[in-house]
């Protein structure tokens, strides 16, 4: 589904992605972790070309993201992206938020889009909040609307960039539950997160990045109990303290 | 059009342009100084506790802001003689500029004063500083920091406003262009040269504004 081949990216002089070689198969859930500045957010943002890459090949759903002739609009319609800061449209209700892209990009009729929107919002547990504005919702609720907004496009891939990092602790679980359900349904997911419990339960593989490189990638049982890399061990010891 | 552009004539008129350039500078400068005085007075009246003073200042400020400068200039130019007051055009012009800019300056100063958090004043009071000390060490330095950038903006506005004084026969930059048009039928050479002079002043003032903003940000960083 997603193929990184010898991918490099620089921010000026900073070598933020250094020779990335990674493959994510259909239906796979990949969790990406690492210290801040490791490049994990940048990596996931390259997948739908929110950030362009300078070297190497990036092929998503058969389309060449690195090629600037590729029609990204079509590809982005197949990828749902959930931001750390939610980025819900404040001037629209939850229902309008999730129905906007289907009507404008997939050209679905307004009524169909609204019906779908109601259904998906119900699925994430917000059926009674469809007419609420983001300002009236808690952080956890807003993030669930953001997930619903991605799902309404019926994407093939869902990307999550630290979806719970901006949430108060008591709201983290409601979002993780939605994500777990999604994984259970076979969605291809790449999740940048520090929530190791989620990784253990749901990920097919866990990858750790440091200084622009993927230093280790393994299924969770292996990753957590028997990390091969010294830096992985160091990182795990720091974050698994609590 | 450009082939016919006569640089020699511009050189010939350069003494006039330079004289008018200086005139524009001193007219704007006088206006700026005057407006600082008028503005400070009006601001003090506006924020005073006296309803009469505050009201009078409001009337002044609102009248100026709701009427065009040109109408105000004509008001003084045609109106003062009918009261028996005779003065040079330059004086009339400076008065009009002063009163006009003074109203805007008053609002700038008022915004500056009100932007200082009241907690600072309380801190000053509780350390035992008296009114003048609080003014000098706490309020005025900060008010200055907030007001210098918009005041530089006012300076730019004054320079441009001074062009209107050409319409009451004052010899300044725009008038130089008009003279070249009427004497030599060369409006292009005349007004484009005028424009260039104004742009020089504009970019100099803009640079000063940029430089002073950097310095001021530095101060707040401490």
């Amino acid at each position, binding site marked *: 589904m997603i193929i990184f081949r010898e991918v490099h990216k620089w921010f000026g002089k900073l070598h933020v992605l250094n020779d990335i070689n990674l493959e994510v198969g259909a239906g796979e859930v990949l969790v990406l972790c690492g210290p801040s500045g490791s490049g994990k957010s940048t990596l996931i943002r390259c997948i739908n070309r929110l950030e362009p890459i300078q070297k190497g090949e990036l092929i998503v759903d058969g389309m060449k993201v690195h090629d600037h002739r590729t029609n990204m609009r079509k590809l982005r*319609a197949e990828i749902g992206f959930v931001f750390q800061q939610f980025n819900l449209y404040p001037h629209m209700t939850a229902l309008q938020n999730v129905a906007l892209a289907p009507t404008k990009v997939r050209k679905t009729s307004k009524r169909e889009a609204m019906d779908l929107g109601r259904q998906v919002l119900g699925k994430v547990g917000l059926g009674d909040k469809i007419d609420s504005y983001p300002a009236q919702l808690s952080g956890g609720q807003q993030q669930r609307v953001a997930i619903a907004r991605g799902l309404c496009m019926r994407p093939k891939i869902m990307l999550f960039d630290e979806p719970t990092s901006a949430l108060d602790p008591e709201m983290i679980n409601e979002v993780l539950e939605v994500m777990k359900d999604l994984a259970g349904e076979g969605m291809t997911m790449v999740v940048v997160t520090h929530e190791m419990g989620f990784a253990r339960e749901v990920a097919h593989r866990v990858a750790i990045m440091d200084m622009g490189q993927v230093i280790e990638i393994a299924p969770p049982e292996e990753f957590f109990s028997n990390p091969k890399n010294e830096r992985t061990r160091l990182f795990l010891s720091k974050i698994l303290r609590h | 059009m450009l082939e016919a552009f006569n640089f020699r004539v511009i050189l010939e008129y350069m003494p006039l342009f330079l004289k008018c350039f200086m005139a524009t500078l001193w007219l704007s400068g006088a206006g700026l100084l005057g407006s600082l005085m008028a503005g400070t007075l009006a601001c003090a009246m506006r924020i005073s506790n006296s309803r009469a003073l505050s009201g009078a200042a409001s009337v002044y400020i609102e009248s100026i802001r709701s009427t065009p400068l040109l109408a105000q200039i004509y008001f003084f130019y045609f109106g003062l003689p009918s009261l028996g007051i005779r003065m040079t055009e330059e004086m009339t012009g400076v008065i009009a500029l002063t009163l006009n800019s003074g109203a*805007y300056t008053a609002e700038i100063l008022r915004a500056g004063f009100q932007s200082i958090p009241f907690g600072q004043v309380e801190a000053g009071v509780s350390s035992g500083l008296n009114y003048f000390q609080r003014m000098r060490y706490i309020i005025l330095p900060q008010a200055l920091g907030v007001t210098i950038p918009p005041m530089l903006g006012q300076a730019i506005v004054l320079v441009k406003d001074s062009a209107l004084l050409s319409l009451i026969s004052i010899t300044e930059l725009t008038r130089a262009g008009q003279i070249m048009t009427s004497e030599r039928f060369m*409006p*292009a050479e005349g007004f484009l040269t005028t424009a260039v002079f104004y742009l020089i002043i504009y970019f100099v003032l803009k640079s000063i504004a940029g430089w002073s903003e950097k310095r001021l940000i530095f101060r707040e960083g401490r």
Partner: protein
Amino acid sequence: MWTYYLTELAHSLPFFLKGLWMTIAVSGISLAGGTAIGFAWGILRTRKNRFIDHLIGAWVDLIRGTPFLVQVFIVFFILPEAGVHLEAFPAAVLALTNLGACFICEIVAAGIRSVPWGQKEAATASGLTELQQLRYVVMPQAMKTILPPLVGQYVLLIKDSSVVSAIGVMDVTRAGWLTVQRVPQGLLVFGLVGILYFIICYPLIHLSNFLERKMGGGTTSF
């Protein structure tokens, strides 16, 4: 004497009202045109194309750095040399529209830049085109920041329209200028002119302040 002047003034009232109508016409057309062009330029300035941004920016700087009077003279006196002969009214509207467009362009660009970057990213990530992003996500949010200064700019343009009286456009200011030749009571005549402008501008200024409060505050000083 005074009664004579007052009755003369009263007789001139229709003349002034015609002038008022002309002021409204010149301002109105320029505001409409300036808003349309200003929004277009403002949007263009915030796109990825740096060249267009700098091009428009250079033009805006030119217009903001020179007095409007000089711009009016350039349009009226210099364009004929390039083959474009405009009468007073069209020349006035052209110059005022351009002035408005430049200032409104800056207001719009600032408003668009004030929308959090994440909003644009979310819209991009859903696959919306640039136009769709602008229309459904960015502009609705930018309007809160744009509307109050926009109305303020309208007031400034109405006042600036008085300058076109210098090339003979028969607006309120020109009506005053012509009347004062016959009725040498500058205070009365231009007092009337002031009142007429006041009637239009004062409510608009307060509309702008009201909008500013309603939209959540920010700094508008003009």
